[in-house]
């Protein structure tokens, strides 16, 4: 059998070979690949930890692992998934690849800084993995004091150093995106012609830059108290343990929007492409992203309704949390309305996008229960919360991420993935996801606290359902790993624009040349001009001198 060959021309993948050409590259597209490999690695490591957690929870007794081990497993699951997969996931992989291409630029504003941010990410990951290998950490990914700073006998310092370092890669990526989006848009590409993917990444970058330094400082303080017994959080040393929660959630709540805003950006692109329509209420959706980024900074106290903060502070945070829900609701309504009188196809990326809307809607609406003071008191720190944030982070972010990977795979590799398998995987993930996490809402309301190694027997049936769902979910996540790798060699040749999409990134060959565009484009239309021919949305700039 002869393999399908991509036409012989120079592009970013074949311009040079060898390990140095990758590890020293400043091409944003190759750096995106470095990130793709790294976050995929961390995703499966985090998934492995989750597998053991779910297996342990099949029975009420602690029979698979000891309590210490269980506590380390859920901690390492959370730390790995949050800081090394979900936060960098879409921005550092898809954002890195697509931000310059979507705005008609040849690279990010600071290509070497971009490479540096990957090395910083890897260094942080190395510290955290070393901590895991040396015996792990058992504080929960939330590192609550004074347990983390004084009482835990595990590798807290090494882990927080890892997370601290990794934060700088987020800051640098955010900085790079903001400067690039401000300064390097193609002629004619005004702010309100930008794809919503760019708006979402702009909003995300604001959070990266404003939020990440706060978690960095907070983790330094935990380290100082742990190593030098400097009294900051432990009351026995004159500190305040609740202060840590304020500082931690000041970053970590907006971090949820770091995870979900880029996914919303991806979904906007997919819905538009597979209904061949401009996103309904484009401007509203764009500003909704910014509103989420800004209001998202003012709701951290909703993690602390039972922490002993004042009743009145609780009321203000509850009110603001309801406000931040509105822009998300508006987005969901606008995506739905985009389908109206569209030309809807069911390609795999669209299935992921519709799956995203389904799971994100449930995740978002269950967030209302947690914003409601009287209900949060009961469900706080139970499996209800665990279910809710997995619907947002796994249901939302991972569906968006996978949808995006499938959609831009032909652009990144020049080849298409096997469509049937991809649709099957999307379906398996959707079903497996609900079976895994829906029972946890019930578990939470009937009172099962989170982070429990052993639990009363009346909670078993729902836990078994959840574990069964997780095994289906695992199959759903392994499938794309297999067929995407397979497609690198055996996939059919995609061509420049297999979806008939209107984004600038589709108006250049696949895989793109190192410079992204053979000739720099001049944009003459807004994003999603599906009623026009692709050739009508931009013109080619006449070279100035030749």
């Amino acid at each position, binding site marked *: 059998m002869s393999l399908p060959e991509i036409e012989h021309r120079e592009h970013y993948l074949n311009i040079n070979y060898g390990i140095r050409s990758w590890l020293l590259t400043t091409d944003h597209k190759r750096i995106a690949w470095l990130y793709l490999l790294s976050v995929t690695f961390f995703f499966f490591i985090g998934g492995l930890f989750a597998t053991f957690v779910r297996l342990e929870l099949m029975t009420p007794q602690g029979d698979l692992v000891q*309590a210490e081990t269980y*506590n380390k497993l859920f901690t390492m699951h959370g730390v790995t998934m949050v800081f090394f997969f979900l936060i960098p996931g879409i921005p550092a992989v898809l954002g890195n690849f697509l931000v310059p291409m979507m705005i008609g630029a040849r690279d990010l504003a600071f290509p070497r800084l971009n490479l540096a941010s990957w090395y910083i990410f890897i260094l942080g990951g190395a510290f955290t993995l070393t901590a895991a290998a040396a015996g792990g950490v058992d504080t*929960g990914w939330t590192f*609550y004091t004074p*347990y983390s700073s004084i*009482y*835990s006998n595990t590798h807290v310092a090494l882990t927080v150093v890892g997370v601290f370092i990794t934060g700088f890669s987020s800051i640098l990526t955010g900085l790079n995106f903001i400067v690039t989006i401000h300064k390097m848009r193609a002629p004619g590409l005004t702010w309100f012609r930008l794809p919503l993917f760019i708006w979402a990444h702009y909003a995300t970058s604001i959070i990266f830059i404003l939020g990440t330094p706060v978690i960095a400082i907070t983790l330094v303080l935990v380290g100082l108290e742990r190593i030098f017994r400097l009294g900051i959080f432990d*009351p026995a040393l004159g500190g305040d*343990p*609740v202060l840590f929660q304020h500082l931690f959630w000041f970053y970590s709540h907006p971090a949820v929007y770091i995870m979900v805003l880029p996914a919303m950006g991806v979904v906007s692109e997919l819905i538009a492409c597979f*209904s*061949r*329509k*401009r996103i309904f*209420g*484009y401007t*509203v959706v764009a500003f909704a992203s910014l509103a989420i980024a800004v209001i998202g900074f003012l709701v951290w106290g909703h993690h602390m309704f*039972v*922490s*002993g903060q004042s*009743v009145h502070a*609780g*009321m203000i945070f*509850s009110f603001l949390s*309801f406000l931040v829900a*509105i822009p998300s*609701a*508006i987005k*969901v309504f606008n995506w*739905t*309305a985009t*389908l109206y009188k569209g*030309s809807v*196809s*069911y390609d795999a990326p669209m299935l992921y996008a*519709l799956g995203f809307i*389904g799971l994100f*809607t449930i995740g978002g*609406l269950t967030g*209302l*229960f947690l*914003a*409601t*003071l*009287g*209900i*949060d*008191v*009961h469900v706080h720190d139970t499996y209800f919360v665990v279910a809710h944030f997995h619907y947002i982070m796994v249901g939302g972010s991972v569906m968006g991420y996978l949808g995006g990977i499938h959609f831009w795979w032909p652009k990144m590799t020049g080849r298409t993935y096997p469509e049937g398998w991809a649709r099957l995987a999307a379906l398996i993930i959707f079903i497996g996801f609900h079976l895994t996490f829906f029972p946890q809402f*019930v578990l939470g*309301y*009937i*009172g099962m*606290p989170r982070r429990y190694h052993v639990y009363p*027997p*009346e909670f*078993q*049936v729902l836990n078994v359902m959840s574990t069964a769902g997780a095994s289906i979910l695992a199959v759903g996540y392994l499938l794309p790993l297999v067929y995407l790798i397979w497609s690198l060699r055996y996939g059919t040749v995609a061509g420049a624009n297999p979806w008939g999409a209107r984004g600038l990134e589709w108006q250049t060959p696949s895989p793109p040349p190192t410079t992204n565009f053979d000739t720099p484009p001049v944009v003459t239309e807004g994003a999603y001009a*599906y*009623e026009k021919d692709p050739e009508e949305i931009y013109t080619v700039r006449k070279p100035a001198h030749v």
Partner: protein
Amino acid sequence: MNLGFPLFPEQASTMAPRVDALFYFLVAVTSFFVALIFVTIVFFAVKYRRRGENERPAPIEGNFWLEVIWSVIPLGLTMIMFVWGAVIYFDMYNPPDDALEISIVGRQWMWKAQHPEGQSEINELHVPLGQSVKLTMTSEDVIHDFFLPAFRVKQDVLPGRYTTLWFEATKAGEYPLYCAEYCGTQHSGMIGRIVVLEPAEFQKWLSGGATGMSMADLGESLFQRFGCHTCHRGAGTPQGPALTGLFGKTVKLEGGATAIVDEDYIRESIIDPRAKIVAGYQPIMPTFKGLISEEGLLQLIAYIKSLSMPERAQSKK
């Protein structure tokens, strides 16, 4: 494996039906919106499915009034949730004045309770039916959380300060008590039960385990043992202010500020006496940090509180 499982926890406090009613309201509202979105998406996706490769749907910009409608209606609904939830929350954190007071100390990994009459329990709490109970709680080490699912109440238990929780049980029986804030290795073993007894039964139980010493009595003996009475006696001395009738009052501090004498203030004055000096006194009191256990501090507080109750203050004069 028991194949049946409950969908709702038992309702055993005055708060439980109120929380559940609000919960049902949210379930109804959110289910409606989930159904609305799902049905609309499926309907549109089928009705407007691509029928030919060359379809070019006419562009639709958006619709101002639709945006207004689907912003304002959710906003209105969430404001109902906000107010309703806030009212319940406010009541959850404002105990009635006549509540029975019980002290709770959490530590890795057990719960210790002490009743005003002096009875102590570990990982169990006996309370009377139909009487509001207020728990004053602290931790000896890390943050714990006192969670009673059947009562729908929960409160973090912090080291170095007091938090409170109150409830009124409405159904006799035994209900689970969980630690809900992750606190280390045996976090999931930091569980217990709360036993709700008919008032007569409760009185019987109270007298059954009686030591003869109430919490205030125990506090008084500590007060003598640590020599507190040398400065804080009778109407006070030049070294220390009088404590009789002090609890709940507002005192003037050096520097012009004022402080309300509550549990946290007394605790701080024993652990860190120089933090707040009452106007007119010298900062000469030594710290008792590390010398008195959390239970002891609660007993001292019970004693100082008792000096503000008419009968006790009378008998001491």
